[in-house]
């Protein structure tokens, strides 16, 4: 057990730090979004990713031959942590970088890799993940979007929901049914779909936070060239599962740094907000709750280092990623509730009022946290995975 960075890990970090210091946009600091509209903000993030790419830091974990940096898992963690420490803007093409790119690297043909990977890194092409459907969420394998092979093309018809970044995407990793007669896991195929193809319709879907971060996608006789099949035809479940494993393993990476920064900010506020004649930070009940949240954020960090150490010894991310996913998503909900208790009645005031704390960020985060235990697999599904695949209990369904 040695929690110090090795010389090469330290060198990696120092080089990255130096780069960040020279390149981080000064107009982002202290903000959560650039510009008034979602589109304006996205354009900003896209430009930022381009800069990160030019600096050679996009897709750190990807192999060098595909434009990545070939970083170890620990270095990837260093990357996310350093970016978070510096309060750098997020990267626009997050799904492409963390989920879809790695899936193409694992299952794609050489032509596909050449065609898609570098444009993911440079944010030239933005990706979305077309998995969930109105009648297939947790039970993803029961999806009914169909793709029929006709003269070298798959013709796609169907309806996807909750598609994050659908409105911004150029490409979509789509799971569709290619063999309706096979068992439900056996007849699926992953297609790489150009979002500008005729017959693709993107509709905004408003979330409980009021924004429309995600979309509904409709496919009407959309023609997808057969060479855009990722992996083998009817082997889509395997391919999609790889994406889901990456999702569970990486979505939480570095998140503890963001939580910790939010926590520190909350503590600062707790020292200035007065209740019953003294700062809330003196209230013994609040102190208990803050102490607990701090402990849990720290444990989230430690769990992550431990699981990354294990993965770097044993290979690919496994079902243990579900433990991480459960921990961070449920912790954030407890954290946001404690934040509301610290802030008191003004905690509910949203963006736009001068009475809002931090321009309404806390009111937003409180609502947004509810999505955490649903996206990337619900908490119930994560517990099923742990029960069955980790503890070896019989499948419940």
């Amino acid at each position, binding site marked *: *057990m*040695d*929690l*110090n*960075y*090795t010389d090469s*890990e330290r060198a990696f970090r120092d080089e990255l730090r130096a780069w960040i210091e020279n390149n981080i946009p000064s107009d982002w600091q202290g903000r959560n979004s650039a510009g008034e509209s979602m589109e304006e903000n996205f354009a900003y993030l896209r430009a930022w990713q381009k800069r990160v790419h030019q600096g050679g830091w996009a897709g750190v974990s990807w192999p060098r031959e595909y434009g990545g940096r070939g970083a170890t898992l*620990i270095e990837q963690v260093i990357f996310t*942590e350093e970016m978070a*420490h510096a309060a750098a803007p997020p990267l626009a093409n997050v799904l492409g970088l963390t989920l879809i790119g790695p899936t193409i690297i694992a299952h794609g043909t050489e032509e596909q890799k050449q065609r898609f990977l570098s444009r993911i890194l440079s944010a030239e092409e933005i990706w979305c993940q077309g998995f969930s459907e109105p009648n297939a969420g947790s039970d993803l394998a029961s999806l009914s979007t169909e793709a029929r092979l006709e003269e070298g093309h798959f013709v796609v018809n169907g309806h996807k929901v909750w598609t994050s970044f659908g409105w911004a995407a150029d490409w979509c990793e789509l799971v569709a049914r290619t063999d309706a007669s096979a068992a439900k896991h056996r007849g699926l195929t992953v297609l790489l779909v150009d979002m500008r193809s005729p017959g693709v319709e993107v509709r905004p879907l408003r979330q409980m936070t009021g924004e429309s971060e995600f979309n509904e996608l409709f496919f009407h006789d959309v023609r997808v060239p057969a060479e855009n099949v990722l992996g083998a035809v009817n082997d889509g479940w395997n391919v999609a599962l790889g994406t889901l494993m990456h999702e569970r393993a990486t979505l939480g990476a570095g998140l503890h*740094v963001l939580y910790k920064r939010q*926590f*520190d900010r909350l*503590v*600062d506020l*707790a*020292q200035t907000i007065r209740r019953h004649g003294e700062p809330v*930070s003196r209230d*013994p009940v609040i*102190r*208990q709750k*803050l*102490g*607990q949240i*701090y*402990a*849990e954020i*720290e*444990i989230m*960090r*430690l*769990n992550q*280092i*431990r699981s*990354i*150490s*294990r993965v770097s*010894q044993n290979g690919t991310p496994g079902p243990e990623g579900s*433990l991480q996913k*459960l*921990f961070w998503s449920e912790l954030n909900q407890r954290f946001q509730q404690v934040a509301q208790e610290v802030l008191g009645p003004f905690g509910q005031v949203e963006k736009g009022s001068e009475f809002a704390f931090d321009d309404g960020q806390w009111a937003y985060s409180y609502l947004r946290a509810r999505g955490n235990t649903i996206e990337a697999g619900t908490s*119930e599904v*994560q*517990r*099923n995975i*742990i*029960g*069955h695949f*980790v*503890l*070896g*209990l*019989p*499948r*419940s369904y």
Partner: protein
Amino acid sequence: MQFGLTETQQMLKHEARRFFPSECPIAEVRRLMETDGAYDAALWRKLTEHGWTGILFDEASGGMGLGLVEMAVAAEEMGRALLPGPYFSTVFVAGALLNALPDGRGALKGICEGRSRATLALLEESACWETGDVGMSLRNGRLNGTKLLVPDAATADLILCVARSRTGQPTCQDRTGGQAELVIAQVCSGAPGVSIRRMPSIDRTRQLYSVTFDDVPAEVLARGDEAQAALDRAMDIATVALVAEMVGGMQRIMELSVEYAKTRKQFGKPIGQFQSVQHQCADMLLLTESSRSAAYYAAYALNEGTADARMAVSVAKAYASEAYREVGNRGIQVHGGMGFTWENDIHLYYRRAKASEIAFGDAAFHRERIARTVVDGRAAQEAAVGSSRSM
């Protein structure tokens, strides 16, 4: 960076996992917990022969001089086997304290060689884990007063007593503790004037006592800041050892419950197939693994003397205190009526969980300690240069 056990640590773990349940199987735990002191001379001899009594202490004192991560590895397996009796108070508490005192080394040899057992007498009526409340008085080299909730006092040869040294005639201000200097004094448990009475409590595998000192001669081992620093160090080490033990206990409850969920059938299927049971098991794993991360990090941080070491100890104890109890709650529930029987072993762990939750400060105590640093300390920290990077 590598957060996992080294090969030698793995070997130690395997050895400990084999040793404790085979030398002290649960039937033996049950037999011993019905005896006064839960102590067995033959078991103690084996613990000594295999070097367990000396794991923390350097070779000059007759020990093996292992690090604190190794200590955590061993303690985890002891907790999994529910090792009863005075080992913990002798080695991880009193031993750690003697080891932290320049004048304490002499007594360590007897501990390493299995000749003596020791305990720390800290709590009094206020039952506070900080020394501010200590009122027991040492005057002209003699102790007077009562210590409460002293673990394993009946089998200890040596009692390390935290007291306040006073000079001159007794006055009514004595009770406040106030100005008098903190001391750690060493007493032979057999000395005239020492009386030890059992305080029956939830965890019968480690028994608690009241110890009254009536004009008992004592040898002062440390005073003032030196005494406080040694106590702080010893309490940190003991707390980490305890949390590691708690992880072992959680692990065992989880193993028993998952096994039971796979074999017990109702409505024609294993109960582990019902999601409400399955999800209890998943939560047990989450609580256990999270406590394990915290325990090992705290051991590592203390061993390396990192700046956040004391915080790491509090984080671990705050979390594990509730986690062990929660794992126990779920374990009993998964076992149904069987889980409520004396015959089933889970209640033995559940009892240990309560005693461990209380020892060295419960979750609320450690959360307040965290708050003192991260809430009150934040203003000061802000002024300091740079952000608080984690490593």
